[in-house]
């Protein structure tokens, strides 16, 4: 190279001496930043991404085939494992689908209790997503701080159904038992303490210069492209479209409540972060409205926690253990021996990631003929290569975590 060293102390390589090629980097299925198992094979030009190819299926557990083997109540346990950060929403969505097929109408108190639990699950999901965006950009404190409040949400779930994470909560037509006083005390405690925590979490990130420079402009998407890619949920709302299943097709009496739908403009990571934070504020408002409405119910209304559908609602456990007819009904309903009408129904709920849909075809038999889950993560992960084209490698990591990809929902 001696002939190319000029007196400017600047090494200039002759034209065409090095071919410009791209490096292939495997952002493999096990990686600290991929929360869940999915793989990206990136073509990098220096540090810029030229193209990205995604591979999914590393946790494919064959839910749809498994559902053809199980009667309706046994499918609730597998719906838990779809978006496992907010499993009560999946359970309630499945019970709503069954209620639509079977024609069961739930009383108002059941709807309001369901709304409290679903909004708590939504807060839980958004907390994980936002704090993990913080961890990926280097801020571990936010994660540790809000995980304490997720523990309080887990305790509320434990009071209601006994389990923390994969809740298998509720029955077709309501809940298995009335919420105890401890459960209401814990909900009240959450409503009192959590706003200050969320305010502190926002103070850590919202106007933090490092965080803003990392996330503004990372992975933007326009509203038209987002709609074409089938985006739903906070990712679509960050792009500017105010589509929320709770408002468009209200289920479980959501139309009795007043809340806003936060909408972003550019659809980049910063907008997604802010939209999720605002949604947590809206969820808090919905929970306090529902709690107040439940406190105001009087008389017989205040004790009801399930619909009157003995053919589909499992009898009370204390009866199952002591009375013969209750035991027989329990067995028949669990094994799917009660009357299930044939038909096809599509029901969707607003999950933590968007429109979670259940397409159920029943042929009148014990188990569904076909059950398909419309999983929002699976559908919007396709857009990842378009979102990261031309951006830097570290932006790709932030985009992946801000999209809130849950591997269980993606692969089903």
């Amino acid at each position, binding site marked *: 190279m001696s002939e190319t060293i000029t007196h400017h102390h600047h090494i200039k390589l002759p034209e065409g001496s090095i071919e410009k090629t791209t490096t292939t980097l495997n952002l493999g299925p096990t990686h600290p930043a991929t929360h869940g198992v999915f793989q990206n094979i990136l073509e990098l030009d220096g540090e810029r991404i030229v193209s990205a190819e995604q591979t999914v299926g590393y946790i494919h557990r064959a839910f749809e085939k498994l559902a053809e083997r199980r009667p309706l109540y046994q499918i609730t346990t597998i719906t838990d494992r779809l978006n496992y950060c907010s499993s009560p929403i999946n359970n309630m969505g499945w019970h709503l689908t069954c209620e639509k097929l079977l024609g069961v109408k739930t009383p108002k108190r059941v709807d309001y209790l369901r709304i409290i639990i679903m909004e708590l699950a939504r807060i839980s999901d958004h907390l994980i997503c936002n704090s993990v965006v913080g961890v990926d950009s280097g801020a571990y404190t936010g994660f540790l701080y809000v995980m304490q409040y997720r523990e309080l949400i887990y305790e509320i779930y434990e009071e209601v159904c006994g389990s923390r994470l994969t809740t298998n909560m509720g029955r077709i037509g309501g809940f298995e038992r009335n919420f105890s006083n401890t459960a209401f005390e814990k909900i009240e405690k959450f409503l009192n303490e959590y706003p200050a925590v969320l305010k502190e979490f926002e103070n850590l990130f919202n106007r933090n210069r490092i965080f803003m420079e990392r996330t503004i402009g990372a992975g933007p998407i326009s509203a038209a492209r987002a709609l074409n890619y089938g985006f739903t949920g906070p990712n679509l709302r960050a792009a500017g479209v105010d589509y929320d299943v709770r408002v468009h097709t209200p289920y479980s009496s959501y139309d009795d409540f007043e809340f806003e739908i936060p909408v972003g403009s550019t659809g980049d990571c910063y907008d997604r972060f802010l939209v999720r934070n605002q949604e947590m504020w809206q969820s808090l408002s919905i929970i306090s409205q529902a709690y107040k409405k439940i406190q105001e119910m009087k008389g017989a209304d205040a004790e009801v926690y399930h619909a009157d559908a003995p053919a589909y609602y499992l009898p009370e456990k204390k009866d199952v253990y002591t009375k013969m007819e209750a035991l027989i009904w329990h067995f028949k309903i669990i094994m799917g021996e009660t009357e299930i009408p044939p038909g096809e129904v599509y029901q969707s709920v607003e999950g933590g990631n968007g429109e979670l849909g259940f397409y159920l075809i029943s042929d009148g038999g014990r188990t569904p003929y076909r059950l398909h889950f419309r999983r929002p993560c699976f559908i919007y992960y*396709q857009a990842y290569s378009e979102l990261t084209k031309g951006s830097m490698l570290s932006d790709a990591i932030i985009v992946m975590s801000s999209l809130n990809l849950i591997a269980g929902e993606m692969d089903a």
Partner: protein
Amino acid sequence: MSLTNETIKARLIEKFGEQVSNFEEPYGMLTFEAPKEMNLKVMQFLFDDTELRFQFLTDLTAVHYPDKAARELAVVYHLHNLVDNVRIRFKVFTDINKPDIFTATQLYSSANWMERETYDFFGVNFVGHPNLKRILNVDEMDYFPLLKQYPLEDQTRIDKDDAMFGR
């Protein structure tokens, strides 16, 4: 004037005549069927029409009916009109021995992976798809698992005794 199921049905019959058939409304969602060669034409019409505006593909999946001869595989599209808040369901049927359906990826980018999943589970061949290969199962798998004739469990496993598990 809000868009009702009757209006949609009338517009479809006006445009396609006898080719769209089997109109039903299970649980309030208009469901209809068309021959498989027409699937793109129908979806393009539903997309472009200024009154119908079904511009969001909610879901794409397939169902296997082993008993219906020459119509074993049904590909089901769920479309959504976000402005007027109407959903419809559109089915095409195909023979399992020749399961070729035109791809919808030109119209909806979200159909890309949904069609790959349908191919992976049922073997439906989407003609014109940019990258039709298995997505969720291992690449070496040689059968399509969600067809009714295949069992759920892996038959080569040795640690679970089928008799004790009630299979």
